């Protein structure tokens, strides 16, 4: 039997395989402060993605020689649960996870006021419990909420979202099939207030014009994500008066 036929990802009316239009996000829900032990935490369901982020810190960094007397060091560990993907993934970091950890740590290190906590470490842990494309964007979005939940000072929240190209069309927020069979994936993370870019990656094939369209679309997506982040964070701050 031959390989599975590549499905048509977007029809002539611009409707995608899950019924979305080109600039529509998947259904998203966010909750802040979900873990009892961690200093800060957040949980996001984004399409079929289920992602948990937690923060410990600032705290002592060992070994001492790794300490930086001018600022805190931010570590980001991205981990996929074995059952989070179609074929069970062996536990432990793989090269992809290490790379994602690095670019996400750089994104957050831009926005956290690290100089306030010299010689310490801020540990950010992201667990992918169920994956369906865009996990680094979901993880970074959740991590930023977890940092805010922990009361760690930051310039702004970090909102992340990806755009891509499927069947020649630029679309927002790819799901798994679109990422697998599409022509480009462009994850973007910004600081919403000034639209500063803190994470930008791309793989596939785009002309300059297509890139501009994809970038603008991803930016628009990030701003929508930011509204949801604010709502979730504000909700977690309300105190119920019940006893």
């Amino acid at each position: 039997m031959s390989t599975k036929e590549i499905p048509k990802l977007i029809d002539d009316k611009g409707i995608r395989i899950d019924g979305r239009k080109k600039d529509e996000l998947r259904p998203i829900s966010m909750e802040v402060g979900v873990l009892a032990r961690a200093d800060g935490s957040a949980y996001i369901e984004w399409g079929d993605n289920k992602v948990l982020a937690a923060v410990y810190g600032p705290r002592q960094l060992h070994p001492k020689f790794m300490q930086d007397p001018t600022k805190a060091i931010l570590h980001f560990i991205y981990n996929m649960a074995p059952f989070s993907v179609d074929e069970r993934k062996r536990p432990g970091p793989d090269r992809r996870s290490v790379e994602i950890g690095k670019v996400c740590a750089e994104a957050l290190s831009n926005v956290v006021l690290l100089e306030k906590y010299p010689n310490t470490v801020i540990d950010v842990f992201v667990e992918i419990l169920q994956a369906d494309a865009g996990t680094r964007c979901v993880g970074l979005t959740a991590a930023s909420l977890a940092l805010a939940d922990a009361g760690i000072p930051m310039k702004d929240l970090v909102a992340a979202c990806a755009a891509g190209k499927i069947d020649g069309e630029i679309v927002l927020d790819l799901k798994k099939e679109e990422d697998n069979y599409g022509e480009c994936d462009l994850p973007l993370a910004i600081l919403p207030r000034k639209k500063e870019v803190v994470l930008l990656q791309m793989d596939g094939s785009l002309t300059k014009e297509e890139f501009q369209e994809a970038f603008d679309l991803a930016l628009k997506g990030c701003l929508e994500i930011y509204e949801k982040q604010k709502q979730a964070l504000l909700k977690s701050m309300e105190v119920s008066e019940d006893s």
Partner: protein
Amino acid sequence: MDIEAYLHKDYILSLIRQKRRVDDRDFEEFRPLAITKGYVSTKADGSAHVALGNTKVVVGISIELGEPYPDKPEEGVLSTSAELRPMASPYFEPGPPREDAIELARVVDRGIRESGMLPLDKLFIEDGKVWVVYVDIHVLDHDGNLIDASGIAAAAALSETKLPRYEDGELIKGEYQGNLPLNGIAIPVTTIRIEDELLVDPCLKEEYAQECRLTVTTMDKNIHSMQKGGGHGSLKPQQVEMAIDYAFMHAPQIRKEIEKA
């Protein structure tokens, strides 16, 4: 030095001596148990999220095609692993599982295996081909008694796991042919000793003061696995008996919760 443990130990002891627990439970009472089956249903073949008090564990089941062990050619394979994720506690470090995670996985595994709740002979497909059932325990929030929370989550996950469709020598991903065959549900119940008192389902602060623990896994009227651990302390024979009684006392109710969920 675990500062948290050190600071809380005396308080816990003083409460126990007054016959009280830090969260006002009776000595043989479990914390509130919340089970969500199918927690991650799109990729895993079965799953469950368990919150036991503030302890939170997710178990995912992945079923793959594989080869049987050479000494058991007509049986499927059960493989259980556990990760104490660093988000669950400031004392969990990233890295490969160390002795606590390994003990946790093996204790949960023994409960499932020795009870026969998962009949491995029913996982035989044909010569040289069997189903391999991966039980992956992901501890997300540690507030004590990881063993019971994980064992309950594993049992709940298995109870809703579907067997993938097998056709022409291949696993058809995303399609299923009924549920994983189960003979019952094995439940672990952990009791700890603090001085002369026995407490069921310890929370984290109580674990700081414990001398040792005993986990008893039962299914129906039989004991299928036991594990003494969690400290250097010893147990008197009548304390072992009490722990067994507690296990039989709680397992049926927990089983009902799993079925209801």
